[in-house]
């Protein structure tokens, strides 16, 4: 099974669209992506219990990489770790990568069968192509 991915965002439409974009890079490939986004009423917000559930759903035993947007999404993702079983928590990486670029990098790498740390590293490198292009580097 590939490494699982979780997308955390204040906005459900934003998270769903990011997943749609990433899946577009991987026609026909299997990818375990779960979304935890928006508050309980469907408004803007994040919910650590929903994030913990999404991590558990995405985890097949080979680890999970969590991508998130900003502000309280980060606090909620960290809080979610406290709600998980110890065994699951040890397999989770919270990625500091930018959400969209990081997700695409992680998705392509996870679908290719790479391990968790490699997937997390690719997520973190997600900004590099854009930076290189726009700065002429």
């Amino acid at each position: 099974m590939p490494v699982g991915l979780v997308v955390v965002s204040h906005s459900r439409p934003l998270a769903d669209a990011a997943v749609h974009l990433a899946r577009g890079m991987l026609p026909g490939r299997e990818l375990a992506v779960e979304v935890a986004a928006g508050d309980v009423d469907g408004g803007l917000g994040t919910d650590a219990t929903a994030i913990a559930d999404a991590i558990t759903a995405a985890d097949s035993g080979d680890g999970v990489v969590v991508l998130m947007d900003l502000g309280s999404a980060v606090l909620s993702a960290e809080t979610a770790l406290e709600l998980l079983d110890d065994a699951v928590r040890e397999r989770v990486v919270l990625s500091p990568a930018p959400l969209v670029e990081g997700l695409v990098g992680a998705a392509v790498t996870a679908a290719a069968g790479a391990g968790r740390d490699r997937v997390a590293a690719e997520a973190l490198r997600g900004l590099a192509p854009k930076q290189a292009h726009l700065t002429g580097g």
Partner: protein
Amino acid sequence: MADAVDAAGLTAWVQEFARLVREQRDVLTELDAAIGDADHGANLDRGLTAVVSALDADPAADPAAVLKTVATTLIRTVGGASGPLYGTFFLRASGTLGGGDGAALAAALRAGLDGVAARGKAGPGDKTMLDALAPACDALDEALADGRPLDEALRAAAEAAAGGRDATVPMVARKGRASYLGERSAGHQDPGATSAALMLQAAATALTGRG
């Protein structure tokens, strides 16, 4: 003598906290409008209302379970940064509460304080809820170490929290949305420290005369 800090006492504490936040909701929102995104009063009111309903529908039998219910309900319903921060406070307090006396309560509150500091990567003087919580924990520890009864110690803690809240006015915010304002955040009382002071005020009221 019954334990001072039992499930009924802790439930009464959060009920009183909820009542105070409801009463002060507009004040909290106005404070947040000045240096944040004007949702602290409404968010916390929504979360604590859900907490009171959850404890009403399914009363927890032991003290740690009460605090766990408070934590998970706040996490689910508050939204914004105060959800994970208050959630972490009660989660860590729940995990630490090992008895029913004042020392056990003080240790649990201290664990909650440490959890909030770790989660928010904040320290004293950053103009956050920690600026009310930290002096409160210090005052509680000190009063109990002096052998004062729990109700007196909690009143001292509530006074220290209020003093800490007032001391946030001249501070420059270094965390959260308010930090975007930089120097312009000075002159405003921090909404998180204000709600945290209400939490201690509620403890002094609801847990008084129980032990």
